[in-house]
C-alpha cells in the first residue's frame, strides 16, 4: 500500500486526544515524550544530508521490527505533515535543516510514535486516550529499552542523556495531558492558572507549546498541561506530581459544574437556543454553543437530546475548528448546509439541507 493510502487510512479515525470525552472525563489524553540521540554522531541540526539519511537507515530496521510503520516526511505534502501534527504525531518544529532524511514511525493505534531526525535523532512518543499517563510512561520506557539495545544513546554520568536542547538533558522524559475544563473557564476561576504555575507546570495549546489560541471559544477550556522538569526531579516524582494535579483539576472542574452561577446557566440556555434555531453557522459560535451544550447536558440543564450524539457532533466540528485557528486553513462550516446539519443533530429533526 502506498504511503498516501496508509496516511489516509491512519487519519480516518479521530486522533487519540479526541477519542474520549465522557461526563466525568476531564483528562482527554495522556502523552509522554522522550528525546534521545545516538552516541558518537553530531545532533541532526549539525548533520549534512548524507549523515541524516545514514542515521535513518541505521535505525529503520529496529523501529519497523517493533511493529511501527514508516511515513517519510520528505515524501509528504505540507497538508499531510499538518495532519500528523494535528494528531500529536509530529513535533511541529519541522525546521528546514531536518526536512531531509526525516521519517515518522507510527503504530496502527497511534499509541507509539518515533520521530527520526527532528530536533534529536530519536523522539519517542507514547499516547493514550483519557487519563492513562502511567501506562504511557511504562510503554515509553519499554520502547526506549528496546531501541537502546541496538543503538546506544548519547549520555554521560554527570548530565544523563544528552539532547539538542540543553535544557532537556537528563532523563528528558516529558509528561503531558490534554484537559477539557469548560466549567472552570466559564466560571473564570483564576486560581486555576495560579495553581498550575505554583506546581511548576506549563500551559500549552492543544497541539503543543506555542499553539495556545488567543481568543477562540475553546482557547481557555481545551489545553495541554506539561511537566517540563526533566533534570532535577526523577520521572517517578514527576508522575506522582502530575497524578496529583489530575486529581486537583478533576475535582475543580466537577466542583465548578455543580456550582455554575445563575449567569452561567443563562448563557448556556441562550447559546443552546441560538444553535437550535440558527440558519447559518459561524465556526466560533458553533463551537462555543456545542461546548456550552455539553456542559448543560452534563449538568442536567438541557435534556432534550442524547448526550452521546452531542459529544460526537462536538468532536466532529472540533478537529477542523482548532486547526483553522492555528493554521488559517479554510473554514468549512460557514455555509447553510453545515448549519442545517448541526441544527438537525441538536434538535433531532431531519432537514433538507
Amino acid at each position, binding site marked *: 500500500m502506498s504511503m498516501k493510502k496508509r496516511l489516509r487510512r491512519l487519519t480516518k479515525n479521530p486522533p487519540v486526544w479526541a477519542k474520549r470525552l465522557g461526563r466525568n472525563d476531564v483528562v482527554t489524553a495522556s502523552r509522554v515524550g522522550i528525546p534521545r540521540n545516538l552516541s558518537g554522531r553530531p545532533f541532526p541540526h549539525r548533520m549534512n544530508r548524507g549523515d541524516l539519511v545514514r542515521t535513518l537507515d541505521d535505525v529503520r530496521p529496529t523501529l519497523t521490527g517493533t511493529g511501527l510503520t514508516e511515513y517519510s516526511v520528505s515524501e509528504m505534502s505540507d497538508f499531510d505533515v499538518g495532519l500528523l501534527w494535528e494528531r500529536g504525531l509530529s513535533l511541529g518544529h519541522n525546521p528546514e535543516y531536518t526536512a531531509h532524511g526525516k521519517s515518522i514511525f507510527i503504530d496502527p493505534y497511534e499509541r507509539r510514535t518515533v520521530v527520526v531526525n527532528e530536533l534529536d535523532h530519536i523522539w519517542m512518543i507514547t499516547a493514550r486516550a483519557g487519563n492513562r499517563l502511567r501506562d504511557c510512561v511504562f510503554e515509553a520506557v519499554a520502547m526506549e529499552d528496546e531501541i537502546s539495545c541496538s543503538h546506544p544513546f548519547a549520555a554521560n554520568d554527570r*548530565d544523563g542523556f544528552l539532547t539538542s536542547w540543553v535544557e532537556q538533558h537528563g532523563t528528558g522524559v516529558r509528561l503531558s495531558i490534554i484537559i477539557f475544563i469548560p466549567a472552570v473557564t466559564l466560571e473564570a476561576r483564576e486560581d486555576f492558572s495560579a495553581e498550575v504555575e505554583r506546581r511548576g507546570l506549563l500551559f500549552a495549546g492543544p497541539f503543543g507549546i506555542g499553539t495556545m489560541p488567543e481568543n477562540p471559544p475553546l482557547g481557555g477550556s481545551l489545553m495541554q498541561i506539561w511537566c517540563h522538569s526533566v533534570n*532535577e526531579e526523577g520521572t517517578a516524582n514527576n508522575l506522582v506530581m502530575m497524578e496529583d494535579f489530575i486529581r486537583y483539576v478533576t475535582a475543580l472542574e466537577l466542583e465548578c459544574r455543580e456550582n455554575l452561577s445563575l449567569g452561567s446557566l443563562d448563557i448556556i440556555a441562550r447559546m443552546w437556543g441560538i444553535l437550535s434555531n440558527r440558519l447559518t453557522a459561524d465556526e466560533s459560535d458553533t463551537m462555543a454553543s456545542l461546548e456550552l451544550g455539553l456542559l448543560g447536558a452534563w449538568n442536567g440543564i438541557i435534556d432534550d437530546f442524547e448526550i452521546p450524539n452531542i459529544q460526537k457532533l462536538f468532536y466532529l466540528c472540533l478537529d477542523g475548528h482548532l486547526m483553522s485557528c492555528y493554521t488559517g486553513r479554510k473554514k468549512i462550516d460557514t455555509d447553510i448546509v453545515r448549519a442545517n446539519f448541526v441544527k438537525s443533530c441538536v434538535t433531532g429533526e431531519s432537514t433538507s439541507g
Partner: protein
Amino acid sequence: MNKILKCDFCGNPAATLLQHVVEGEQKTVRICGDCMRKNGIDLTIPETILRAFELCSNSPEIDRQLGEVCACGTTGEVISSGLAGCEKCYDQFRVLLEEVWKTEPPDSVPSGNCEDSLQAQLESAIDEERYEDAAVIRDKMQHIEEAEDVDEEEA
C-alpha cells in the same frame, strides 16, 4: 522550551542579552528590565549600553568559551541558542551551559492528594454538623471515584 537566563546584576530572569567585542574578545551581559532602568541603560543610546559592560564583566572562563568552536561547528552562541550540536559540546561549553541552567527552581510541590483533602473536609463538616456541606463534599468524592472507575474499566 524557552530558557531562562539570569541577570548578571541581580540574579532575576534576564530579558536582554547584550554582546560586544572589546579588543577582539566577545563580551556578554545578561540584564533584566529593572536593572536596565536602575543603571540608566537605554538600548537606543549606544553610550549607555557600553556602560552595562563597564559595570559587569564576564569571568575569564566565560569569555574564553564564548570564543570557542566545537568540532561539530557549534560556537559559544550556544548560550543564546540553547542548542548543543553534539555530545562533546556538553564538555567544551561547560561554563556557558551552567549559565543557561541557572533557572529559577519551581515552587515546592504540595504533598498529599485531593481525595485526602476532601475526606478531611467531610469529617470536619460532619463534626460541625454542617450536613448540607457534607453532602456536597460526599458527592464530589463520588464523582472522582466514578471517573477513576471508568478509567480502570477502560484500562
